[in-house]
């Protein structure tokens, strides 16, 4: 008799469990099982960094708009001044900086010089020749454009920056081989000179040069062997 009662109890218990399981599926009910809510927890937080570079708001920027230049004029002439831009890196990961130069120009209207015939118009005030506008762009340590030449990646002799229809550009002039960190600044100075040898071919010609500094993460982005500050560094380098 006792044996029969025990067996019946087990059967009833099994039924209750089955019903409970069905209720869990349908209504999310819980049993009264012993459990732990999970006192052991781990919080794992991952945050990406950023790469930001721009003009230093606390720096003194000198934007040039030099008009009516005469042969022999330079940043030191009259009220002229060197163009100057203070760059500040504000990203929170290590970075490499590079400088892009873009020149555009418009041909002028040559007039007949005294004692000679009218020359052909130069394609712009900067035309890549020794007679047109000359630039010296540096950050105090590296020179990026010297007269009309820049340094290429191969390390050979300087390369002329020769425009077509007044336009020329060079990109990825490396500014640092040691990664910069947040707060680092660089001052780019643009000195200029229109040689005395410029003739009437440059009458009323203009040129505009735009400097663009960009940055890329230095971690997991090694500089290619051979890249030096002041020269182009693009082959084998990821700038974006």
């Amino acid at each position, binding site marked *: 008799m006792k044996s029969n009662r025990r067996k019946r109890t087990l059967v009833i218990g099994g039924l209750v469990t089955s019903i*409970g*399981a069905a209720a*869990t*599926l349908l209504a999310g009910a*819980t*049993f009264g*099982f*012993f*459990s*732990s*809510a*999970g*006192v*052991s*927890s*781990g*919080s*794992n*937080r*991952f*945050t*990406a*960094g*950023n*790469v*930001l570079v721009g003009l230093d708001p606390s720096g003194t920027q000198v934007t040039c708009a030099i008009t009516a230049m005469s042969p022999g004029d330079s940043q030191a002439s009259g009220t002229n001044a060197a163009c100057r831009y203070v760059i500040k890196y504000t990203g*929170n*990961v*290590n970075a490499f900086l590079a400088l892009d130069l873009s020149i555009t120009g418009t041909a002028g209207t040559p007039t007949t010089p005294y004692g000679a015939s009218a020359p052909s118009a130069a394609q712009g005030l900067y035309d890549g020749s020794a007679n047109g506008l000359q630039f010296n762009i540096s950050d105090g340590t590296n020179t990026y454009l010297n007269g009309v030449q820049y340094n290429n990646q191969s390390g050979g002799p300087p390369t002329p920056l020769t425009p077509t229809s007044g336009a020329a550009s060079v990109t990825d002039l490396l500014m640092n081989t040691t990664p910069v960190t947040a707060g680092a600044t660089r001052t780019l100075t643009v000195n200029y000179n229109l040689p005395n040898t410029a003739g009437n071919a440059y009458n009323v010609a203009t040129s505009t040069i735009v400097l663009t500094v*960009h*940055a*890329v*993460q230095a*971690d*997991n*982005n090694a500089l290619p062997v051979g890249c030096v500050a002041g020269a182009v560094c693009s082959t084998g380098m990821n*700038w*974006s």
Partner: protein
Amino acid sequence: MTVGLFSSAGHASGSNAFSAGVVSFGSPVATTCTINPMSPGDASTGWTPAGADATCTLQATYSGTIPAILGLDMTITGVAGTPVAPYGGATPAAAPGLFDGSANGLQVIVTDGASTSFVNNTTYKNQAGSALALSATSSVQGLLIRRASFTSGTTETITVNYQLPTSASNAYNSASTTIDLVIHAVQANNNSLPAGCAAGAVCTSGFNWS
């Protein structure tokens, strides 16, 4: 009223004590792993290939007095960053978090000491064994740590390895993701695991976690 019938005051009664077991963890542990700031290409030391950042671990010692089944819950939350224009391109739309379930966002591998994998890059397994995608805001409950029950003093270590692919773009600038892991336990006795429940996968249907 009493009569003169033979009687006895009764034998000494037996003492029957019942004591319930407990399901608990010893030394409650809450760990925090903060990786900041990450750059594309960064990875933990346990990633392949190994990076330089620390692997995150969560260790728990089961201290209950009855055998238990352990489960792992995971919650992912993300905060979009502030993309800037990349060099030579337009500003991309912000990713919803550093982990966004794509191949470009944060990749995560969550395992235990027995090489059971709970998260493989951007997916986890449901109870049927199919890989399901996680998103920037996901919540997964009842990942079975192992089929065998834990006894008091058994330690479980959950490991989180990660990598931010080099294909991550400025869409992820300053984005962040938090992955919260919670280990919980339930009695193993009278609470059998469904046949299809496998370690590393969700085990909720037909199983009682409480």
